[in-house]
């Protein structure tokens, strides 16, 4: 190998690399412009005292906003609610989703119709879902839930004001269960028939087969559902805005709703920006752990397939 060919090859490599990268750039630049740049601005705002009700109040205050929100009971309660709502919604809708998917994973009369019915809640406008749950479902006098539960003595419970978080979670679970169900159903249908037959030959019970064979096979799909579901549910705003307005008081406010309130009703740009930054840091810490797992699962299965 002569000394002159090495740089030439490096140049050729570099230009080929750029040709390869070119198709990626528009999407990358667009994403950076519309997500990263505003986020940098948020960090900038969070270091300043800026209340729209006090014009000319903009000044650099360092970490004062962070100090204020981290001792703010309302913020801490909203953080707790966010974790509570996200975790319970993802968990319950995943369990319901698995149950429904198992029921659907067999041939029976009207299977297509049942599947069509079951995916509908995921497609209905979430704003409408929230309003309908608040009124026609959970109303203490005329609501359907009260009617069904009245034999249990729960007929006249005012769910939305007595159990606001539970009510919000109920509407969210209804909305997200079909999403989980479809994912798990896809997973079930990718399972090899031979494995099931082998299990049957070995005389395993239905439950044993589910726990020992099907669940491990579904792991990747469950992880994907939990991750995607959590990403979307953490950001829930419309359901809370329509059902409880974060109330009574701030009992059911989550972080997105609290940040919205602070910015657009309290006009405190600095504090709401600081809350936004804290949410991002929290989300990234939790998600990084989850994402690493999923990444490993995904890329390793791709390598197996290749």
């Amino acid at each position, binding site marked *: 190998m002569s000394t002159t060919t090495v740089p030439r090859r490096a140049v050729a490599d570099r230009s080929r*690399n750029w040709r*390869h*990268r070119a*198709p*990626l750039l528009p*999407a*990358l630049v*667009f*994403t950076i412009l*519309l*997500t990263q740049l*505003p986020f940098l*601005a*948020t960090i900038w705002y969070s270091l300043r005292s800026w209340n729209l009700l006090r014009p000319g109040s903009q000044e650099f205050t360092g970490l004062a906003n962070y100090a204020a929100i981290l001792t703010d009971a309302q913020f801490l309660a909203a953080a707790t609610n966010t974790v509570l709502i996200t975790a319970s919604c993802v968990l319950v809708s995943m369990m319901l989703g698995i149950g429904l998917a198992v029921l659907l994973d*067999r*041939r029976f*009369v*009207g299977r297509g119709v*049942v599947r069509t*019915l079951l*995916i*509908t*809640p995921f*497609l209905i*406008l979430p*704003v*409408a879902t929230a*309003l*309908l*749950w608040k009124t*026609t479902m959970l109303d203490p006098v*005329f609501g359907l839930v009260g*009617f069904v539960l009245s034999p249990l003595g729960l007929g006249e419970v005012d769910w939305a004001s007595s159990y606001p978080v539970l009510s919000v979670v109920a509407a969210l679970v*209804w909305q997200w269960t079909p*999403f989980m169900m*479809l994912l798990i159903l*896809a*997973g079930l*249908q990718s*399972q*090899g028939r031979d494995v*099931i037959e082998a299990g049957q030959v070995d005389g395993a019970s239905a439950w044993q087969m589910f726990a020992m064979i099907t669940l491990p096979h579904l792991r990747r*799909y469950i992880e*994907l559902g939990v991750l995607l579901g959590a990403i979307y549910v953490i*950001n829930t*705003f*419309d359901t809370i*805005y*329509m059902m409880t307005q974060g109330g009574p008081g701030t009992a059911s406010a989550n972080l*997105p709703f609290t940040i*919205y309130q602070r*910015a657009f009703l309290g006009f405190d740009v600095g504090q*709401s*920006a600081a809350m*936004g930054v804290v*949410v*991002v840091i929290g989300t990234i810490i939790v998600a990084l752990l989850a*994402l690493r797992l999923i990444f490993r699962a995904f*890329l390793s299965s*791709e390598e197996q397939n290749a």
Partner: protein
Amino acid sequence: MTATHDRPAERVPRPPRAAERPARRPLRPRGLSGTALTVLTWAVALVFVSPALWMVLTAFKREADAYTDPPRLLFTPTLERFATVFDAGILPHVGNSLIATLCSAALVVLLGVPAAYALSIAPVDRTRDVLFFFISTKMLPVVAVIVPLYVAAGRLNVLDNIWTLVLLYTAMNLPIAVWMLRSFFLEVPTAVIEAARVEGASLPRVLRSVMLPMMAPGIAATVLICMIFSWNEFFFAVNLTASQAATVPVFMVGFITSESLYWAQLSAAATVVSLPIVVVGWLAQRQLVRGLSMGAVK
């Protein structure tokens, strides 16, 4: 074999993939327990979806029939509530939602397909890092960027402008779309592309006449998911639009506030605003499954 087999693309042997194992047939129920399971499945499904069925039913009621204890199943249906929804001027907002949904989906395809191509078929270095970056932007809660976006939109004079939403919905859906498209593109056999390249076809030509037909189902699935999220989006819409550019979720909220909370009225409005996406989702169930499972399943 079949008539389609004389297309040149079909002759290239496809590399075996794990996903091409013979499809498993759903277990056939046997006898009584099978029937019982079917009845159980139907019952569970009907109970689960009853809030939606109740919504449609209530939409055809008079208000007096909507507020009864016990709830009324039999009543004289009326279309009056629907007439009120259309009289309230819903159509311009449906137009706004259509623009926001369709244009942002088109932009997502325009930006996402080349990006996914560069991350799958002709992978660049550091593919993992780029993918990681894209999905991590999804971790960025929209509430964390709404204030600067609001300030910027105000300065640029694009508040209450539907094209602002088009751009934001594109940014909102692009990360997930790139992931989905990439998974779909990994399924495209590279041998076909190489064969076409060897025969002297230019890259754009290969893309258009060889790859695009194979990618079409994956693109369709991605577009469908993006459409659902854009049509249903509320946070950006309520904060960045007013009367002009309001999409259907914002109209819905304004309508309920101005009409007060009458249940039959509410149900009719909810049915109308949900119908387009519900129908699209029903018709494209297969794509929905593929899209959600990131192309992991055919």
